[in-house]
């Protein structure tokens, strides 16, 4: 894995482009939700792009990721087609899960995206299991497991990290610490403020990193991925970031649990703008270049919305499909 100093200009611009794509996509999702094209719950990752982009820039194509319900940007960055992601959000047959999953359940087997899970922390054991399987079959694959800081208090987190450390599994646990579990700040939910400290309960490697700095995240996760691939050991990474929108589209940007001033202050550390400014000061890209990138990603997002909008809903027959893999297979026989 390259050290940041040796990243080519093209590679830097590509990272910026991915962050812009995630940002523009999520903004469009907000609009689409307000227009009722997206239903149910919709959790946006605006402000947290550096974590997913930085982390996944360290992966090989056949590595796996697991995320919580705040999964749109993760899916796109890992390689899912934005049109199929938007179609899934619109509940159409052309969506990644044929409209059966929705915003919280994005799955893409072709790109190693294993969901998209809605029960807080429940995917942490799943990610651990995939890491177990990789080791079982002696495959040099690594699993990144993303979740929020509120998930570290649930039992499944504890059970999983214990087993990962005990059995030495190639899983990197990335805590996207955006300070708030819905409306509850970390101070009011966790006895320990520094999430990464919990790793010592399992004798596990850990790091705390600035989650608004894409290159810092890339470096930190890069170390963990190397440790996992070479020595099959897990790491807990705490990426400190901030979400600029509410917990979900049902949640105001600010209100009871955080002030407008706090949000405005955090917006000054916008990871996309920050990275652009860094690259700009190094002469890697200028304002015109940024405009062009923006135009490119806008075109992609527009096309995604158009594709989704033109797609049909799943047929009624889809209701009973895929409940079982083979309703009447060779080892299961029941009267049709």
């Amino acid at each position: 894995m390259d050290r940041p100093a040796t990243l080519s200009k093209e590679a830097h611009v590509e990272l910026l482009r991915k962050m812009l794509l995630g940002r523009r996509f999520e903004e469009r999702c907000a609009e689409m939700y307000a227009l009722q094209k997206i239903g149910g719950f919709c959790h946006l990752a605006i402000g947290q792009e550096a974590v997913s982009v930085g982390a996944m820039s360290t992966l090989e194509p056949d590595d796996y990721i697991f995320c919580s319900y705040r999964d749109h940007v993760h899916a796109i960055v890992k390689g899912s087609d934005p049109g199929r992601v938007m179609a899934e959000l619109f509940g159409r047959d052309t969506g990644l899960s044929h409209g059966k999953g929705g915003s919280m359940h994005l799955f893409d087997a072709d790109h190693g995206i294993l969901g998209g899970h809605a029960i807080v922390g429940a995917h942490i054991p799943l990610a651990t299991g995939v890491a177990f399987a990789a080791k079982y079959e002696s495959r040099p694959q690594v699993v990144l497991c993303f979740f929020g800081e509120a998930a570290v208090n649930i039992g499944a987190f504890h059970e999983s990290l214990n087993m990962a450390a005990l059995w030495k599994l190639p899983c990197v646990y990335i805590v996207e610490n955006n300070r708030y579990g819905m409306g509850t700040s970390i101070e009011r939910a966790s006895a320990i403020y520094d999430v990464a400290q919990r790793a010592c309960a399992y004798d596990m490697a850990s790091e705390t990193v600035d989650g608004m700095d894409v290159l810092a995240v890339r470096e930190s996760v890069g170390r963990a991925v190397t440790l996992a691939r070479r020595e099959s050991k897990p790491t807990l990474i705490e990426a400190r970031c901030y979400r600029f929108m509410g917990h979900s589209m049902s949640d105001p940007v600010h209100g009871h649990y955080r002030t407008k001033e706090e949000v405005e202050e955090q917006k000054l550390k916008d990871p996309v703008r920050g990275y652009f400014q860094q690259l700009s000061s190094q002469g890697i890209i200028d304002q015109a270049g940024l405009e062009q990138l923006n135009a490119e990603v806008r075109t992609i997002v527009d096309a995604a919305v158009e594709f989704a909008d033109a797609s049909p809903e799943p047929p009624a027959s889809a209701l009973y499909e895929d409940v079982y893999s083979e309703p009447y297979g060779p080892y299961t026989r029941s009267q049709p």
Partner: protein
Amino acid sequence: MASRVVMPKLSDTMEEGKILRWLKQEGDKVETGQTLAEVETDKATVEMEAYTNGVIRKLVASPGDTIKIGATIAVIGSPDEDISALLESAAPPPAAQARPVPTAMPIRATAPPQVVSHDAATNRALRASPLALRMAAEAGVDLNALQGSGPQGRVIKRDIEAAIAKASASQASAAPAQPVGDVQEIVLSSMRRTIAKRLVQSKAPVPHFYLTVDVAADRLWDAYRALREENYPISLNDVIIKASASALKRHPEVNASFAGDHVKQYSRVHIGLAVALEDGLITPVIRDADSKSLADIAEEVRELVDRARNRRLQPHEYTGATFSISNLGMMGIEEFSAIINPPEAAILAVGALREVPVVEGGQVKIGRRMKMTLSVDHRVADGAQGARFLATLKRMLENPLLIG
């Protein structure tokens, strides 16, 4: 190009929002992402953003207004274009199409068709097991006359069985009615009473129509004679049963029942054969007659008829027919029309085999003819369908090798 600003959906359960205040006024320039207004939803007070660039041309809603999501609250466009069209049709977009909810998994009928009790005179408050109700209806037993041996006087299977046994015993010992003058009043057995009731129910609401054919039974007669010479115990009736079953398989529209708002078509063929008893009629059923051999049918008919005459038929042996045959040929009847047994859709009336002069190749010869009349429920099949079935049956009987 001007566009409408609509009340956005800002929470998963939001249906309408209240404008608290506008942060932009008419004439103000606005860019994507800038706050337009504060809106109160069912969950919180939220800031609403603009999704396009332009100038606020019109604020359609006022502070304090409660607006349904999707309805227009403002128009954004260029400073001097005509927006009257947008203001006119400020109706909310059509609600998301109601998704068609697939109907529940169809209930799979596994049981063969059952005869339903039409006895409206049965006292509804009488407690009887469903099985007892069914058996009573089929055997013509009057539930009102029974004392149930189940809990709380429930009439159950053994009570009906006992009633049937008693009825057949008492038939034998029923005293003949005394003639009064020229009129003899014959007390109806419970069986006759039920037959009477059910057939009126059949004739009245079932629109019958009748189709008659005269079957050239020469080959049939020859084949039958040949088998008899071999001491093969087959009767002509057995052949008619088998041929009917075979023809019904080819014409399933006639192997059916009217069921109110649909027709039930059966894939299996069960032939009921009318058997005369001393004081009435019963129709033992040959199940799956199409797949049984002639020899098997003959044996089964013999056995069922014998038991029918001795009143030892079980309910499942005289119910469940999909088609019936009545043969009065042995009594010399040339031709007659039978009444359909509900809930079947047709019945075949077979007349006697007659030697008659026929014209063949310009010459008069002796031929054997047999008339058959098919009664059909017009709600289930029409003339052409009945005729096609009857034509197939006729062809089979005229060429017995076609049967099967």
